Structure formats: structure tokens, C-alpha cells
């Protein structure tokens, strides 16, 4: 998937992946896509909840070898 910005949140734990995601999204324009990598298993549910509450669209959420990758489209 194409993206405009990438955030490496690997090794960080709650609530840092969400806080960094919020910060990275603020640097994007509406409609642009952010890729986030994380190793925090809690970030899977948290990212869904973040997307629902902020109106940013979670385009995909996947796990690969213990790493989680998310694509979010800025509201």
C-alpha cells in the first residue's frame, strides 16, 4: 500500500504508539496515508479505538512475525 509518511513505533509501549501516531497524523494533510509499525500487542485494539474516536480511517491492520503494521488515512 502507498503511504505518505512512516512511523516506527517498534519497542514502544502504551500509550506511546497512539501518541506518536496522533503527532505524525498532525503533520499530514487530509487524505494522506500514514504507515505505523509497532511491537505492542495492545496497539491492535488501541489503533482501532483511536481511529473510531478521531475519525481517521484505519485502512488496514496486519501482523507479521510479531510486528504490527497499520495504515491510517487522515480525516
Amino acid at each position: 500500500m502507498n503511504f505518505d509518511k512512516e512511523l516506527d513505533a517498534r519497542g514502544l509501549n502504551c500509550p506511546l504508539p497512539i501518541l506518536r501516531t496522533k503527532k505524525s497524523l498532525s503533520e499530514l494533510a487530509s487524505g494522506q496515508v500514514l504507515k505505523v509499525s509497532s511491537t505492542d500487542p495492545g496497539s491492535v485494539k488501541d489503533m482501532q479505538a483511536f481511529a473510531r474516536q478521531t475519525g481517521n480511517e484505519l485502512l488496514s491492520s496486519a501482523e507479521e512475525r510479531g510486528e504490527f503494521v497499520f495504515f491510517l488515512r487522515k480525516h
Partner: protein
Amino acid sequence: MESKKMAIIATKGTLDWAYPPYILASTAAALGYEVQIFFTFYGLQLLRKDLSGLKVSPLGNPGMPMKMPFGPKWFKDISWNIPNAVQALVPGYENVATSLMKQTIANNGVATIPDLRELCLEADVKMIACQMTVELFGFDHSDFIDNIEYGGAATFFEFAGETDICLFI
């Protein structure tokens, strides 16, 4: 749409209990909430310029697992069951427990309290110190970070009365 609001009363002044108010406040701010934290009694410790004095005490806290943040896995998995009487008598026990806790925090990629507080301030979380307890405990405004306000219970209620979420920690 008007943003949601959350108010927190922070009353605990230990390293472990510093986390809930700052984690919840920073996350709520990231979700678009307007957030205020009212710091009172021991919670005032969380507003000090120098946070290095925050400690954690396993003494009298049966809910706290005591595990070592270093060594091979079998060693890290041991839960050290140290009697209260021993914890109370060994000099520096609290300091050792605190430095082990800080190591565990770093090992797990958990943010430090100074970092979380900074993130809250960056996200415009409003912090209010209880003026009555500031005086009661003999603090001076110069002990605390600059960008906070001082007020009393009525100040807290003015905002708390309008909130969607209100927590006492």
C-alpha cells in the same frame, strides 16, 4: 462539535501511581478530549520540577510482583517474596526497588514520567495544583513547573461539572 472533556484528581505521589493520570490524560488529549488534572495532597509530587524523587515501595503492597529486570529468563521469572519485616529493616530497600522498577520500565519501552508529563503539556492538558495542600505541605510555587495554575475545590468543579469523564486517582 464541541470536544469531549475529562477531569482527573491525582492524589498519589509514588512512581507507580504517577502513571495512570499522565497516561490517561495524554491519551485522552490525543483522542481530542479537553483535559484538566487537579493535583492534590501527595499528587503534588507529580508537578515538581525535579521528578527524580518519585519512588515506589513494595513494602505493605502485596499486589506488587518483585521480579528482577536482568539476568537469564529463569532468574527474571522468580517472584521474590520478601517479608514486610525485612523490607522495613533493610536500609535503602526502597531505593533499590525504585531503581529496579526504573530498569523494568526502560526494558519494556514504557515512557518515563517526565516524558509523559511533557507530552501532556504539549497537548495542552491543563494542570492545577491545589493551593491548600501546597501550603499544608510547605511547598513553594518555585518547587513546581511553571505552566500550571493554582486553585481550590471550586476551581476544579467549574470544569469537572461539564466533563464526560471524571476520575479520582
